[in-house]
């Protein structure tokens, strides 16, 4: 017989191994994250001249894009690839954040800001050699608006365009029904598809060109092996030299598992890798890693939050919502859950942009003030059972969390304990994303944890205007209503003077700060490793936050000079 001791030893080894990879649920020692932060680079300066061969860039995709048709697909992997293949009339410079010519060489705006005329370049050719004309632009717009086309998420942005017409072969005019400050970027931002390729009688949604895109951009599509790789190569006939990339080829390998992706990067099979905080702190701190790669931490243009459904009696009172924010130990969570690789936020505007209100000071963790505010709002433990109550009802609510999101589940667990200490009973309810959407869209929930992405030009209408507060399916999930905010939001959308808009949005943020419809949580840092032969890497507040047109490999250090 095998002795008990052997059994125990075996069991112990198994457990110990499990513990060493799953990582600490209770957070790392305090020193590690701070040291890890110090390793992060902000940028890598240019170094010498780019290699004549240009080298390749090999990256990974966590999920394969469904298609490479920018109109029917709205998936992150799709845009990662298509940003090099398809172009728009205008593009935003990551450096200046201003709009620059792309397929349109110039444009005119009418006095009333309703009409935009774009003058197109005459020297642009599609990757198959056919010339690009105004017909392509109009065709692309028509497809987006076509109810038979599976592009509903995109159509949302173009609802207010009353007409998009061709004036001549190289001029198009876009007219808005009512003034809107983002009209220009919406009209000019359309992804232009080749009419001669798509308009051949095949069904648009299942068109074969969705898997063999033909664009005008600096890179040409060359190969897609389902589930394995997507390959692009440099377009030798590209019209704009300063937009050309240094890389001769770009390879995207489909690798679904994040630890496998990291492993592939360590092996040298990838040139970039996205990291999670745990990988950042524990699995990429070896000397060997540092010899081969640089690590970058940069701001992500998204934040997460807890939304308080103001339609529920517990959350009607803004003092309660403020108290709930005071009870959220954001600093502690940033350390334990994000290893300090996150920034606490308290406004729905992208920090470090003109619109952001710097004067707002995020509420810290302060249970005493929370208790005082709750008492003011009428919540006290009148029956002595340890839970706060009001009008005979205990303070109890359900927090919706997307199942499978470790981060949200950890935050919810920490928060639950804090609330219990303050006499509030929070029940965590985990729902799968598909199931999660239902109660959130129909506004049948108490509180939920979600995230929004932020754009450089914010438009608070969709999230915060009271017109959405009572409508099912609207994004004003929490039922936020505020007369002053409504007025500001409406004026903001039709004002074309940036300074005035900045002032309005700053005031708007003060209202949000006071009302606390959300308890804002974090903008987590995006973490990335890049092979250190690549230089001239800089980060910007755009999406994506880096500009691959700048990246290059110095002379003599190219790795893929021909097919491996």
């Amino acid at each position, binding site marked *: 017989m095998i002795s008990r001791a052997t059994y125990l030893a075996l069991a112990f080894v198994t457990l110990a191994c499990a513990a060493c990879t799953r990582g600490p649920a209770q957070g790392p020692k305090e020193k590690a994250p701070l040291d890890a932060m110090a390793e992060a680079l902000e940028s890598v300066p240019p170094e010498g001249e780019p290699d004549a061969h240009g080298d390749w860039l090999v990256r990974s995709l966590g999920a394969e894009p469904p*298609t490479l048709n920018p109109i029917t697909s709205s998936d992150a992997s799709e845009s990662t690839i298509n940003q090099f293949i398809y172009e728009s009339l205008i593009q935003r410079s990551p450096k200046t954040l201003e709009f620059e010519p792309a397929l349109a060489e110039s444009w005119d705006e009418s006095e009333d800001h309703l009409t935009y005329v774009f003058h197109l370049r005459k020297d642009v050719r599609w990757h198959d050699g056919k010339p690009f004309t105004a017909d392509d632009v109009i065709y692309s717009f028509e497809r987006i608006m076509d109810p038979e086309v599976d592009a509903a998420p995109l159509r*949302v942005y173009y609802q207010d365009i009353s007409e998009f017409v061709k004036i001549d072969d190289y001029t198009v005019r876009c007219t808005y029904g009512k003034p809107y400050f*983002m009209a220009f970027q919406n009209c000019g931002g359309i992804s232009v598809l080749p009419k001669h390729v798509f308009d051949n009688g095949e069904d648009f949604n299942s068109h074969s060109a969705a898997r063999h895109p033909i664009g005008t951009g600096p890179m040409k599509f060359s190969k897609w092996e389902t589930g394995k790789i997507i390959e692009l190569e440099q377009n030798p006939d590209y019209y704009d030299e300063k937009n050309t990339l240094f890389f001769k080829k770009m390879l995207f390998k489909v690798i679904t598992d994040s*630890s496998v992706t990291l492993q592939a990067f360590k092996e040298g099979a990838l040139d970039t890798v996205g990291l999670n905080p745990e990988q950042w702190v524990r699995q990429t701190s070896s000397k060997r890693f540092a010899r081969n790669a640089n690590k970058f931490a940069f701001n992500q243009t998204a934040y997460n939050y807890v939304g308080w459904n103001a339609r529920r009696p517990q959350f009607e009172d803004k003092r309660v919502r403020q108290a709930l924010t005071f009870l959220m130990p954001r600093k502690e969570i940033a350390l334990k859950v994000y290893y300090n690789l996150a920034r606490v936020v308290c406004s729905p505007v992208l920090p470090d942009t003109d619109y952001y209100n710097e004067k707002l000071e995020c509420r810290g963790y302060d249970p005493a003030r929370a208790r005082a505010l709750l008492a003011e709002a009428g919540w006290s433990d009148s029956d002595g059972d340890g839970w706060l109550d009001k009008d005979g009802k205990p303070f109890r609510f359900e927090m919706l969390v997307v199942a499978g999101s470790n981060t949200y589940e950890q935050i919810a667990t920490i928060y639950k304990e804090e609330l219990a200490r303050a006499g509030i009973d929070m029940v965590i309810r985990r729902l799968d994303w598909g199931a999660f959407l*239902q109660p959130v869209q129909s506004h049948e929930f108490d509180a939920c944890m979600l995230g929004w992405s932020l754009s450089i030009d914010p438009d608070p209408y969709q999230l915060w205007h009271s017109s959405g507060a009572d409508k099912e399916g609207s994004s004003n999930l929490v039922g936020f209503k505020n007369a002053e905010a409504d007025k500001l939001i409406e004026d903001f959308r039709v004002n074309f003077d940036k300074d005035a808009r900045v002032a309005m949005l700053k005031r708007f943020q003060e209202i949000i700060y006071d009302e606390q419809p959300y308890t804002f949580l974090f903008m987590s840092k995006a973490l990335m490793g890049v092979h250190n032969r690549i230089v001239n890497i800089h980060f910007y507040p755009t999406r994506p936050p880096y500009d691959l047109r700048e990246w290059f490999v110095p002379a003599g250090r190219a790795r893929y000079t021909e097919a491996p």
Partner: protein
Amino acid sequence: MKQYIAKRILLLIPTLLGISLITFAIINMAPGSPANARIAQIFAGEASGEVTAELIEQTKKLYGLDKPIHVRYWEWVKGMATFDFGESFKDHRPVIDKILEALPITMILNILSMIALYLLAIPWGIYSSRIAGSKLDRAVTVGLFVLYSLPTFWVATMLILFLGGGEFLDVFPTYGYETYGAESWPFFARLWDWTLHLFLPLVCMSYGGLALLSRYARVSMLEVIHQDYIRTARAKGLSEKVITLKHALRNSLLPLITLVASIFPSLFGGSVIIETIFSISGLGKLGFEAIRSNDYPVVMAITTISALLTLVGILISDLLYVVADPRISFEEREA
């Protein structure tokens, strides 16, 4: 016998219909409609509630979700009859194309791991029945049960970490089933490349079944060995080898044959995890992603196909029974 087989095959049709009806009902009743999810992908924008509702309606119509559920099921059945599984909501490609693309690698993985499993587990089971109670037997049994209890995703991650390059040993590639550019390699180089790529996934798919299957083999062998005819054979002076391999083996294999039918679908389930971790674009990964993104046509097609495979598996194992054991005859049952 022929009549029996024909009957069984005919029975497959109502069974399949029943399974598909239940699946259809479940995925359609589960919360979260694909049309809503499609809109929710992009919450941002300037849509008011009304616009969103209108767009959701448009998308529903596009996906055929505006029709009542029984109409949709009937349409699905009609399509099925001609092997038309419809088109995927995600990329509008015909579902059958997506499945045919994904099926071969999953079949290869499953068949290979089945073979590996039987080749390892049965000999060990037989051997261990002969050394039953010895130290080696006990040690291996414990080892196998430890393996059995380890979660696949964890083992896969460990194997990748320690054998897949980077920090420790660099023996096996860790994703996909062939190297980029391997299409142009000579046959044997390509075969070797495949072997290296498939080794870790195969290990992960098979190790769990080892304990189970070798236990089965061991137990049924032990049972047979203690029967009278074996004792007789022994008394006649036959060698132990002949007794085990010739007389006992055939009878002890019977229960293992039924297992083929039940192990096959479970391997199929296992390939969901393995294919996702090792980024192998097979049926398991396709199904997993389809469920996550509410891609009803793909989910339906995969469930139907795997149900069909399971049913056929059961049929085959029943037929194998006849081959292995002459005492079983279906004609008698019919009489």
